[in-house]
C-alpha cells in the first residue's frame, strides 16, 4: 500500500463527484422525453419549439458538467 490519506480523499471525492452526472442524465432524459411526447401529440407545433428543447437540455447538462469539473479539479488542480 502506498500513497497518503489526502490522495485517497482526492480519488474518492472525484469518484463521488461523478454521481452528479447521473442527475444531469435524469434531467436531460426528462427534457427529451417530454419534448418527444409533446411533439408526437402535436407535430405541427414541434418545429418551432426545438429551440426551447435545446435550451432546456443546455441548462440540465450544465449542472452535470459542473460535477465533472469538480472531479477534474480534484484530480488535477488540488
Amino acid at each position, binding site marked *: 500500500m502506498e500513497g497518503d490519506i489526502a490522495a485517497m480523499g482526492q480519488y474518492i471525492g472525484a469518484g463521488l463527484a461523478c454521481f452528479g452526472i447521473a442527475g444531469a442524465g435524469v434531467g436531460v432524459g426528462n427534457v427529451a422525453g417530454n419534448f418527444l411526447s409533446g411533439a408526437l401529440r402535436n407535430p405541427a407545433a414541434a418545429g418551432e419549439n426545438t429551440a426551447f428543447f435545446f435550451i432546456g437540455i443546455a441548462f440540465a447538462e450544465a449542472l452535470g458538467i459542473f460535477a465533472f*469539473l469538480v472531479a477534474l479539479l480534484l484530480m*488535477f488542480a488540488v
Partner: protein
Amino acid sequence: MATAGPETEPGGLNIHPMDQFLLQPLFGEELHWFTPTNGTLWMLLTVAAASLLMVAGTRGRALVPSRSQSAAEMTYGFIRKMVEDVTGRAGAKYFPYIMTIFLFILFANVLALIPTSFSPTSHIAVTATLGIGVFLTVTAIGFIRHGIGFLRLFWVSEAPTLALRVVLFFIELISYFIRPVSHSVRLFGAMAAGHAVVKVFAGFAGALGLAAILPIGAIVAMYALELLVAVIQAYIFTILTCVYLNDALHPGH
C-alpha cells in the same frame, strides 16, 4: 492542468488522456503570455477556415448556388432566423456579433476532431473569454438601452407580495451573475470531456493487442457522437447568447 497525472506504468494506459490539452510553444521552449502556442495556431486556423467558407463561398453569388455557397448561405440564414426568432427585430442589429461567435465555436469544435489537432474550446481560458465577453456586452447593451430601468430584470413585479419580490430579487441576481460561469463551463466541459473519453479508449486500444478492435469500435461511435456534440454545443452557446441578449433588450417579466 498545472500538474501532470501519475506516471505511466507498464501495463497501464500508454496515452495519458489529459496530455492532449497541454499548451506547447511553437518555437523555442519558454512560455510567456505572448508566446505563440499550438492553441494560438489552431485558433488562427479556425478563423482562417471560417473566413474561407464565408469569403470563398459567397464570392460567386450565383443564382444557382454551388455547394460551398449553399453551405455559407444556409449557415447565415440559420443564425439570422435564430436571432430574429429569439430577440425579435431589435436584436437584428447585433447579428454580426452572434454570427462571429457561432462560426468561431463551430469551426474550433469541428477542427478539434482532426486527429492530433488541438482543441481551443477545451480550454477554460478561451471559453471564459467568450462567455465574459458576452456577459459584459449584454449588460452594457441593457444599461445603454434602458438606463437604470434595466434593473427591472431583477424585480419581478408580478409576484404577489413584497417579501416574495425581495426573495426573487436575490435569486434573479445570483442567476444573472452565474450566467458567464455556466455559459463558458458548459462549452469547455463538453469539449474536454469528449476528447478525454476518446483518448481513454485509445489508451485501452494500445494495451489490448488483437482485442483492440473493441475499443476502436467504441472510438468510432464516440467520434460520431463528438461530431454531433461539437455542432450542438456551438448552437447552444449561440442560442443562449441570443436569450441573454433578449433579456437585455426586453427586461421585465
